[in-house]
């Protein structure tokens, strides 16, 4: 695609429900990142994929968070049993490699009520 695509753009969910966020990176980009940005805050690193493997999962806040990437392309971030503190914008970025420019999607704004 022309850019990084994320869906949905907005998601409102009830506390305790599971949510899945999707990221479709730029074609050919082997590196894929997930970040979380709370209101007015910085970019909190969550997880990084190189191809389909995730060599660095150190940023995942808890075991309620998981992510996978299939076919070296689409990635999904799953949050189980959502809590109000999970409310944030979840940003995905992709790049040709970890030492090259990263392109960001427009993000998914998650609101847990």
């Amino acid at each position, binding site marked *: 695609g022309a850019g990084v695509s994320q869906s949905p753009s907005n998601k409102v969910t009830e506390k305790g429900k599971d949510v899945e966020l999707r990221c479709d990176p730029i074609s050919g980009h082997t590196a894929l*990142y997930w970040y979380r940005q709370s209101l007015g805050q910085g*970019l909190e*690193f969550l997880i990084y994929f190189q191809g389909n493997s995730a060599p660095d999962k150190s940023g995942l806040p808890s075991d309620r968070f998981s992510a996978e990437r299939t076919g070296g392309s689409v990635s999904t971030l799953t949050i189980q049993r959502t809590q109000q503190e999970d409310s944030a914008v979840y940003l995905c970025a992709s790049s040709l490699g*970890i*030492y090259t*420019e*990263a392109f*960001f999607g427009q993000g998914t704004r998650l609101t847990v009520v």
Partner: protein
Amino acid sequence: QQPVQSPQAVILREGEDAVINCSSSKALYSVHWYRQKHGEAPVFLMILLKGGEQKGHEKISASFNEKKQQSSLYLTASQLSYSGTYFCGTSGNTPLVFGKGTRLSVIA
């Protein structure tokens, strides 16, 4: 390890200059600079790969001192369009992690 940015915020009048600093406690291979406007995704400005390298983008340039594990972003003759939050990202033994950002406001 998250890089440290300074200052946290700065207010400039149009035409003034600013410097944003980024430092890391770990060895770096690359430093990335991004700008994010309110409600939008971060946009790439530049990437620096070698020690002492300096790059420019219009009136925005940056330097990277690999030995000191520091980078600085220089904004000269600031314009209203420069307003936003600037993030430095670093990668070395870890993938791309970002500092907490520097909020830059340019006023007329």
